[in-house]
């Protein structure tokens, strides 16, 4: 019942933080100041921008296909929002704990491209249509390496349930139903014989559990940048070269919704990256002998402490990833569309395919 408002609140909160951080970080990276005037250090700038956007006229072009045009932002935002339904926020709180969560997530987020096409076609503007085609081509292409990288995690974890994958990566492993006998070995290799089930921390994160997956993480991260239209893959928007992409005809609140969807997508892909590769809501600190760092920073399962710690770790890891996204955006120049496709089809996809293969072999070594 209250999962939707909670998720919305989370999205808005994180968007506010990252919106402000993006401006400040980008300014500092380029020796500028960023927002200064509205509120202390420009902290109220987002509120000012929001007010500005809200009081703008809602323009629908006369020749546009009104239904498509009006509902496109809704479809885009709803498909991204629906992706959050299966994200486990804490060990106890997952809006919808379905066993095929990851599958659902990939499927529903792809609906995004329908919204993009609706926006581009509905605008009845050739630039918007071209922009939409570019976006769709990019997103559809990059879903393949991203999907393959995710597949390698699924092979290792033997599950599509995001909550299950989360439990696999921490000290609570044996509390998950049906996992009472499960054991985490260092690097996932039973031969090594080093049992890290109760050490937890970073040692049980997927990227360490199966070091190979750090490559998967990189592939997924690059592909996810392209999926949420972030630089250096932001040719659909390319604000400094084109008028804009598929959303060139949008104004006011509809435009704000599109942007909110972009930022929500950033958060979503970061959360998925954290859950699949970076230990989900588990602490990064391992237990070391009497220094029970992992236990101290994980709390008790089912109690307030457990939930708060889990939420804290999950959101903070996602924020770190989002800062990396910002960092990349303000460092790298935008790629040309052919370079984009080259990277996707000739580098990332083959690498991801090889990764899936090795992951399958690794999985055999784990049992």
């Amino acid at each position, binding site marked *: 019942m209250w999962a939707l408002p909670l998720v919305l609140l989370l999205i808005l909160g994180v968007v506010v933080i990252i919106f402000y951080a993006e401006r400040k970080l980008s300014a*500092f*990276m380029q*020796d500028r*100041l960023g927002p*200064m005037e509205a509120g202390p250090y420009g902290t109220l700038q987002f509120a000012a921008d929001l007010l500005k956007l809200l009081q703008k006229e809602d323009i629908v072009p006369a020749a546009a296909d009104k239904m498509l045009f009006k509902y496109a932002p809704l479809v885009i935002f709803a498909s991204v929002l629906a992706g959050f339904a299966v994200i486990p926020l804490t060990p106890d709180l997952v809006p919808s704990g379905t066993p095929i969560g990851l599958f659902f997530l990939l499927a529903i987020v792809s609906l995004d491209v329908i919204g993009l096409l609706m926006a581009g076609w509905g605008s009845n503007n050739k630039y918007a249509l071209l922009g939409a085609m570019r976006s769709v081509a990019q997103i559809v292409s990059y879903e393949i390496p991203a999907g393959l990288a995710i597949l390698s995690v699924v092979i290792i974890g033997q599950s599509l349930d995001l909550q299950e994958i989360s439990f696999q990566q921490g000290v609570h492993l044996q509390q998950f139903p049906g996992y009472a006998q499960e054991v985490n070995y260092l690097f996932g290799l039973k031969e090594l014989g080093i049992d890290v089930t109760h050490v937890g921390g970073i040692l049980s994160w997927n990227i360490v559990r199966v070091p190979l997956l750090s490559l998967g993480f990189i592939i997924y991260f690059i592909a996810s940048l392209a999926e949420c239209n972030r630089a250096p893959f932001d040719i659909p928007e390319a604000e400094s070269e084109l008028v804009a992409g598929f959303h060139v005809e949008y104004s006011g609140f509809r435009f704000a919704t599109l942007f909110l969807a972009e930022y929500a997508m950033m958060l979503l892909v970061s959360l998925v990256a954290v859950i699949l590769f970076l230990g989900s809501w588990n602490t990064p600190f391992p237990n070391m002998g009497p220094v029970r760092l992992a236990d101290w920073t994980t709390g008790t399962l089912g109690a307030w402490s457990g939930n708060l710690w889990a939420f804290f770790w999950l959101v903070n890891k996602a924020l770190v990833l989002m800062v990396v996204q910002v960092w990349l955006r303000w*460092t790298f120049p935008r790629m040309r569309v052919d370079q984009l496709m080259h990277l996707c089809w000739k580098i990332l996809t083959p690498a991801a395919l090889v990764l899936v293969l090795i992951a399958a072999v690794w999985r055999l070594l784990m049992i």
Partner: protein
Amino acid sequence: MENPQEKIGSLQRRGFWRDLQSLWQGLGLTWRHLFQARERRSPLHIADPNYFQQDTGVVTLTYPYESLPVPENGRYRLHNEIDDCIVCDLCAKICPVDCITIESVKATEEIGETSDGTKKRLYAPVFDIDLAKCCYCGLCTTVCPTDCLTMTKVYDFAEVDIKNMIYHFTDLTPEQAEEKKKLWADQQEAIAVAKAEAMKARQQQKGE
């Protein structure tokens, strides 16, 4: 000796690791700048020995609150010292964009001296410079014979209403201008009357 051709070749060489290295360097660069943002450059005069030493940190000045000091001989806004102007119209003639408007009224007598000793015989009921049109070429200041038209170092003179960019330099009120015109006209009339009378007197003398 290294062959320069070879060197260029090695710079142009492409490769996965090289690309990765340069991407990494780029990230390092922005990351460094991120932390250097703790420093800010201060608004120093160009003559300051430290002017070129501030090569790290934020360079943006928060302009209305701070600004770079300009040189004493900065040439930005026109100013006319009307007391020294002899209303010779040279500046209006040379101005390439015709932004100086001068009207003149002859004085009945010498009305003073400029600071360099030139006699003044003209009033200027209108002396307007439209600084919105001015291209700051400085030609007018060069031709001015009395050096009364100069450029000052004030550079911040934006206006909300563009009409306020027209600077009025005249020191006469419209009434005073009218009065001077009338004085000149009266004098001319008086001269004309006197001339006519003198003519008449001469003709009468001839007739006798």
